[in-house]
């Protein structure tokens, strides 16, 4: 049973790491700030989410599992708000969305 949990945890953490990688690649490769925001929020929400799920499976106590979950929820809320604010500021600042030519 413990080893099943261990394997599941490892798999989830690795999936999370993949999303962080995808976020970083998107950050470097996407053409403008709005596209990059799109890549960034995947890493924020899904990447950290999978890492947190993986760690919760290994958490020693209910309390620490709850704390890790709370951290993810906080990052969800503040990450979404920050992305929204940056996009608003970029639009207001006159950065034009990229169009495929």
């Amino acid at each position, binding site marked *: 049973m413990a080893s099943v949990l261990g394997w599941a945890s490892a798999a989830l953490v690795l999936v999370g790491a993949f999303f962080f990688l995808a976020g970083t690649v998107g950050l470097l490769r996407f053409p403008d*700030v709005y596209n990059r925001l799109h890549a960034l929020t995947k890493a924020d929400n899904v990447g950290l989410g999978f890492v947190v799920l993986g760690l919760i499976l290994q958490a020693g106590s209910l309390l620490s599992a709850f704390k890790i979950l709370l951290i993810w929820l906080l990052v969800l809320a503040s990450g979404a708000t920050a992305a929204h*604010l940056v996009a608003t500021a970029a639009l207001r600042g006159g950065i034009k969305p990229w169009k495929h030519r």
Partner: protein
Amino acid sequence: MPELYLGVATFLLLNIMVGLIRILRGPTPPDRMLTAQLFGTTGVAILLLLASALSLPALTDVALVLALLGAVATVAFVLRAWHKPDLDGEEE
């Protein structure tokens, strides 16, 4: 299991290093700011992994503080620091 967590933490740290390119190249200030935001989230993940790998529960508190304050810099950037278009940046 601790080795895997440490490995993933190292991988995420390398992600941060590569992401620095986006801060250095910009081209616009919002690009740089959103990269810093991503670094904050990555830092939270690294701290959580380290807390579990090294059995240092105090690092979970560090991650909690980082998660709480992650948005403060971005909010200050949007509301106080960045007023107008960076025309030079768009030409790059």
